[in-house]
């Protein structure tokens, strides 16, 4: 198979109406329609979903692993950010 130089698109699939689209993977494609069709053929063969989004990978802005410390560590020791200091009323269930 020849080297594929076409654009990479990220694929998000909504499994059921009302649920959020979830990231499934990516596909190569030359244009929007092809991206959608390739995503359909690759990721929805077994009833995985009812709606597909495709987004050019280059349009996704991602944090990088090197930034992990400054991005995520500072919240580790701030337990007060979690709602764990309330007394639960006896009647409240499923929380």
């Amino acid at each position, binding site marked *: *198979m*020849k080297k*594929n130089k*076409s654009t990479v698109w990220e694929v998000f699939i909504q499994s059921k109406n009302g649920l959020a689209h979830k990231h499934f993977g990516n*596909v*190569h*494609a*030359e*244009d929007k*329609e*092809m991206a959608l*069709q*390739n995503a359909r*053929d*690759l990721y929805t*063969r077994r009833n995985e979903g009812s709606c597909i989004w495709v987004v050019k990978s280059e349009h996704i802005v991602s944090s990088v692993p090197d930034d992990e410390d400054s991005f995520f560590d500072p919240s580790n020791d701030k337990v007060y950010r979690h709602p764990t200091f309330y007394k639960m009323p006896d009647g409240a269930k499923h929380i």
Partner: protein
Amino acid sequence: MKDLEKYTLRIADTSLILAQRLSEWCSNGPTLEEDIALSNISLDLFGQANGLLDYVSKLNGEKSADEIAFKRNERQFYNLQICEQENGHFGDTIIRQFLCDSYFKLFYSSLANSKDEILSAIANKSLKEVEYHLRHSSNWVIRLGDGTKESNQKIQTSLNQIWKFTGEFFEMDELDNIMLKKNIGVDNNNLKEEWDLIVNKTLKQAKLTRPNDGYMMNGSKQGLHTEYLGKILAQMQYLPRAYPDAKW
């Protein structure tokens, strides 16, 4: 052979042989994504053939669907000749698929109204699949036709070469007329006008020139084929013929 049995067998053979042809792309596609797309279409067609052959088998009462698919020779196959044509390059395959998909869409839309409940059910199920196939192949025709100068030239040549096989879509023979009279079969003549519309629209968008209707090939309704069918059958039928009791 009963009329309905033979009529169904013709439709089944067209799906079966095109499916087998397309399956040759599996692991040879231009990209991984397209490889899977073509294989999916092939599998859809095998599924259609399977449903139709089960029905043929039921009408026949003696032979199983597998026996019908694997134990007949060239002259006993009634698929349209366009289906057995070689894959060639990707553009050749796409053009063949586009012309067939346009026909299938109209054929199954019409067969969905058949008085025969099973044919009508199979047609309705197939129609959804075929509509997607047509979308896939039309997009590729436009992409290649309106792509680069080279891709345009190549796919124009593909179109010119396969055009002579499109006449068979619209032929009516004695059996077709009998089935039409019984409100079971499709009026193939009637499909031509709408087929022209679909094809012309896409070709225009793809900046391709529609070839003139010159000499048209025919004969598949009598079991006459081009040299390529024999080779397909050799590959498709080898295993069940060499190992008749093999299970898979």
